[in-house]
């Protein structure tokens, strides 16, 4: 046993966390007057379940930072396995871990390093989990590289907010990086601007016209895209392209190179082929460290009130970071959008008799004050198209549902979405509660 290891666990804990606990027990000049710092806060943080989505470049940093911020019950989701190109920044992984699941290796490492922290990994997709799973957490932090996954978790957390249950509101902290640039932001679902409101902050991927690729390529990238989109399908239709398979990349590279030579275009390389085909975004340890630390700093402030942070309604909620020329941050309030399809028009609870038909439900809906102009409603659940006014084929397919009973179509508590040309872009969502 090393010198200094104390037999009294509590005393060692007090010593160990003294830097952090100073801020959790002593208010400073900027601390909110309503904040109640002290042992209770320390307790609350250590017992709060917190979810980290992604165990990659940001995720590794997030886990380390949370473990050293007093959070002791951390869960992490990631479906990926470790690749050698991760090792330049994902510091919880070693050469020998290549091929293993990121979530598992990351959890093991941090648990081993920081005593008393429990990290529960899940190796899979966020979409595998349902509302009951997400309900257990006090806070969700994302380190993702996909817009789609962000939108999914955002919609999930917005949808979970229940006015009667304070615990159903899960703050969402989201970070992202690209080369020397990044951003971190705090979202209070249904209260402040959400991922969907911020969709225009993500530039869509640049694309070149297909006909340019097919007939008038001018850049090395055009030749690579041609090999990727057109040549592969013409010549290797039966093989599913695996962008991690070196043989596949080599094939595309040779194809692109030959095409480039045909058109006197210079600059096709193996590395560029990989970059274009896999849409590789440069990533470095330092930017990930900055963005992940900013996200966890906000998490700690939010959970403890030791100091004010980003995200409160009416104040800044978004920090943009750029590090290629000096260091530049722009911190501002991204405004919630009234017409946001996810948080702009929240579902309302309505009680219905489960024995009425869909047709009767539609008639009932049109009597509601907010839906008075409903004339030709179209209506669905996540799983089912209940009734579509148009196009004609779909109308025909869904017409039989009109005379079915609700019990045969939806389950108690399920959400329906209703749209009508009379309301253009506005949709109504209702949560149907069966009256017994």
């Amino acid at each position, binding site marked *: 046993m090393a010198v200094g290891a104390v037999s009294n666990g509590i005393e060692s804990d007090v010593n160990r966390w003294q830097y952090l606990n100073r801020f959790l027990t002593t208010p400073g000049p900027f601390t909110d007057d309503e904040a109640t710092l002290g042992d209770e806060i320390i307790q609350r943080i250590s017992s709060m379940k917190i979810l980290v989505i992604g165990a990659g470049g940001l995720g590794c940093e997030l886990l380390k930072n949370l473990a050293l911020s007093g959070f002791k019950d951390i869960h992490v989701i990631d479906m990926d396995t470790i690749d050698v190109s991760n090792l330049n920044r994902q510091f919880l992984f070693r050469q020998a871990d290549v091929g293993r699941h990121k979530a598992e290796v990351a959890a093991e490492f941090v648990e081993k390093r920081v005593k008393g922290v429990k990290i529960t990994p899940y190796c899979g997709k966020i979409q595998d989990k349902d509302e009951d799973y997400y309900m257990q957490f006090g806070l969700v932090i994302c380190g993702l590289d996909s817009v789609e996954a962000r939108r999914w978790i955002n919609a999930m957390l917005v*949808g979970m907010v229940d006015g009667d249950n304070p615990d159903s509101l899960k703050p969402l902290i989201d970070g992202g990086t690209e080369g020397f640039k990044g951003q971190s932001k705090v979202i209070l679902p249904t209260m402040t601007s959400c991922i969907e409101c911020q969709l225009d902050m993500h530039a869509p991927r640049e694309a070149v016209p297909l006909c340019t690729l097919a007939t008038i390529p001018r850049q090395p990238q055009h030749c690579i895209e041609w090999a990727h989109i057109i040549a592969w399908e013409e010549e290797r239709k039966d093989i599913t392209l695996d962008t991690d398979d070196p043989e596949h990349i080599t094939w595309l590279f040779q194809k692109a190179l030959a095409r480039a030579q045909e058109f006197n275009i210079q600059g096709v390389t193996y590395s560029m082929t990989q970059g274009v085909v896999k849409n590789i975004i440069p990533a470095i340890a330092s930017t990930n460290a900055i963005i992940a630390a900013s996200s966890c700093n906000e998490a700690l402030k939010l959970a403890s009130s030791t100091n004010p942070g980003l995200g409160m309604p009416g104040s800044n909620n978004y920090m943009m970071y750029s590090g290629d020329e000096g260091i530049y941050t722009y911190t501002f309030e991204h405004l919630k959008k009234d017409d946001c399809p996810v948080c702009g028009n929240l*579902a309302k*609870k309505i009680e219905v008799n489960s024995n009425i038909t869909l047709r009767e439900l539609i008639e009932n809906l049109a009597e509601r004050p907010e839906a008075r102009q409903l004339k030709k409603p179209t209506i669905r659940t996540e799983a089912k*198209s209940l009734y*579509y*006014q148009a196009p004609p084929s779909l109308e025909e397919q869904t017409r039989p549902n009109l005379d079915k009973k609700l019990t045969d179509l939806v389950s108690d508590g399920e959400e329906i979405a209703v749209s009508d040309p009379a309301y253009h872009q506005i949709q109504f969502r209702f949560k149907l509660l069966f009256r017994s």
Partner: protein
Amino acid sequence: MLKIWSMKKEQQQAENAVVGKKKKVTAAQLRVQNDLSELSLPSTMKVDFPDADDILNFLLTIEPDEGMYKGGRFVFTFAINQNFPHDPPKVKCKQKIYHPNIDTQGNVCLNILREEWKPVLNLNAVIVGLQLLFLEPNASDPLNKEAAENLKTDRQGFVRNVRQAMGGGSVRGDTFDRVLK
């Protein structure tokens, strides 16, 4: 965090909105539902849903009643992912046809399907664009180079080849799918 909830309560008094369990209709579904209800299709086009519950995957049939493709029935698959409308719909022609802007693999060269896609565009815009391809095939930047060259240099011959291909015949040794009604 307690403070957040008291602020939420204040916000809520005005709204009375609540949500609950179970799977939510997704943002992509909501948007497609809107687009479908605003679709205005002429008699020459129709959409079909192999699975009525899955509105993200459907078929579009175009039956041009004028132009050189008159009398044909052209079927396109629409595959929309959950990232719609951030991502454009993926559209492919199901049949092998002779057309300067559609290659023999079914890839379609239409600007709003790729480089000029914007989330504010809707499915109607895409469908109108596809229809236009049959009324005004564009030889200037083609996907099928031979067909384009053919259209540019010998319009009459091109029309003949289109008819030949639509009947399931072959053009310059390449056999096409029969697409006549």
